[in-house]
């Protein structure tokens, strides 16, 4: 790692874990914790969507996997008495397993076809949650207990959330840690051989197969990792809101995940994080506009698209290219 990159990462971590809480204490805007926690978790889901873009597939189905992950965690905690911390990886893995079963047939589809199927998938997830007995239909699952204590060999790693004086801060820190880990994994994938193979897939699937890449396997793998992130994000959301309904993640959420990636820029690992921050935080700030909130928000989005059709981070490129 070059010193400048190390410095950048250090500054980023300092900002997320020290400056943000400090600013919130100073300004007294405690509500920002909830917003920023959401940003962190949504950007975890968006990271997954971005990875599917990286293999050349437009994924508008992340909401489905977030819903699956959320329900897995909720059901295990309320009905099987699991600790939330144990259900978190299980939610991710279950979502990944589901995505493998679904991905095997549908990943053969390309372009708009794949996009449409994934969009439909979100509706499927919602309707399944409505129909199954274990998910409790439209009433959903409510009063889910807060995450308990996590200890290793008697040593408390994470204290019981119910005993904390400031669970908002705790949730924020937890979400931020998850986000940092997710992007670490994503960055590592993209900058390892795995990422090069994904790029080869994005650019030319046939050629990729002729140089010996098992394209079908790689596609499913990328999609499974993507859905793992989706499941994690979903489970965390459920822990925070302490409830889940079939409508907790709907088509609009899936579309939003995709928008975060687009807006940040598809060519940049940290694009989805920036896109999520801009769109979600922007949306939140716009709540002062009341009934004009959606109008201003979508108007700004359209305007941004007209000015920067290749994402916000493409600004960097122009500077570098000197054109």
């Amino acid at each position, binding site marked *: 790692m070059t010193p400048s990159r190390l410095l950048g990462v250090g500054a980023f971590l300092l900002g997320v874990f020290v400056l943000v809480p400090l600013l919130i204490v100073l300004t007294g805007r405690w509500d920002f914790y909830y917003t920023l926690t959401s940003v962190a978790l949504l950007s975890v889901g968006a990271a997954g969507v971005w990875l599917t873009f990286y293999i050349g597939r*437009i994924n508008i189905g992340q909401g489905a996997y977030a819903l699956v992950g959320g329900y897995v965690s909720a059901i295990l905690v309320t009905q099987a008495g699991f600790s939330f911390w144990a259900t978190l990886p299980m939610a991710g893995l279950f979502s990944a397993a589901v995505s493998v079963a679904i991905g095997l047939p549908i990943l053969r589809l390309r372009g708009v076809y794949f996009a*449409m199927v994934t969009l*439909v998938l979100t*509706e*499927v997830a919602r309707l399944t949650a409505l129909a199954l007995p274990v998910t409790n239909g439209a009433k959903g699952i409510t009063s889910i207990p807060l995450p308990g204590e996590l200890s290793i060999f008697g040593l408390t790693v994470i204290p019981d959330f119910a005993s904390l004086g400031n669970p908002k801060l705790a949730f924020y820190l937890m979400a931020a840690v998850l986000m940092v880990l997710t992007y670490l994994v994503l960055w590592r994938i993209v900058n390892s051989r795995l990422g090069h193979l994904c790029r080869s897939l994005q650019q030319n699937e*046939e050629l990729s197969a002729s140089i010996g890449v098992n394209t079908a396997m790689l596609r499913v793998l990328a999609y499974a990792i993507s859905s793992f992130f989706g499941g994690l994000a979903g489970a965390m959301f459920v822990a925070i809101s302490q409830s889940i309904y079939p409508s907790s993640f709907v088509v609009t959420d899936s579309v939003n995940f995709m928008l975060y990636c687009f807006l940040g820029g598809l060519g940049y690992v940290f694009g989805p994080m920036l896109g999520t921050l801009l769109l979600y935080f922007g949306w939140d700030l716009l709540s002062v506009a009341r009934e004009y909130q959606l*109008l201003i928000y979508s108007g700004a989005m359209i305007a941004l698209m007209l000015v920067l059709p*290749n994402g916000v981070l493409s600004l960097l490129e122009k500077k570098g290219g000197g054109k």
Partner: protein
Amino acid sequence: MEQILANGLYLGAQYALIALGLTLIFSLMNVLNFAHGQMYVFGGFVTYTLVAQLGLPFIVGLIASAVVLAVMGALIEKFLFRPVIRRSKRDESTMLLAAGIAFFLDAVILLLFGEKQRGVPKIVGGVFNWDMRLIMPYDRILIGFLAISLIVGFILFMQYSRTGRAMRALAQDRVAAQLMGVDVDRYSMIGFALGAMLAGLVGGLLVTITGINLGMGGPTSVKAFMMIMIGGAGVISGAIAGGFILGMMESIGLTLLAAYGDVTYLVIFASLMVFLAIRPQGLMGKPWG
């Protein structure tokens, strides 16, 4: 049985009209119009405003819906899609734009018409009853009939008019059409306007029966996507087939599966997945590669 078929036919005609507009836009510009459902809702509200609030005849409302949406479609193509398509590096950028427009239209609808469910009074009263085997209100029959005539009109237009032929050439091969002297910009705009107009017309037709509300946009888009997936994206015959198939499945499902609760759409979705795994290009679509 007759009842199920009649309901399916009636639903299918509405659906096919929506799918036609979506597939037209897709085939001409390779744009997946996320805002299609919102355009449908907008069309419904225009008719509602003119008929229920201003007391004008239904046909005036319907024509107004068509005109308003056609103008809206033309403007959206000219000032939004055209510049973005020209400058973006990837086709997918238009999806962000389309989704942005969908949100924007939702916002406009909310401000102009509010979030309440709206409807207009029945345009014709009475119920057609054939020996209790087939029961259908006359207004549904009328609307179904209007929808089918519009579909026929659209096919004739695409087949025989100069504009229709130019658009078909454009859909088949953009570059070749350009070489043949087809004004691509102009026909893209006309195509988008026409697609939006169809969505608006269905909105105007259905407001008389099911009413209209703000939340209907998204689900309508999802249904329209399903129809063109069934039939094959960008193919006119596919859109019509997809519309009628979905209408029929919904009608059959609602009757047969009612005992198991609200699972019709779940079953439809699941069968669609299986179908696409076997035939990814849809019924009438061209296979790739």
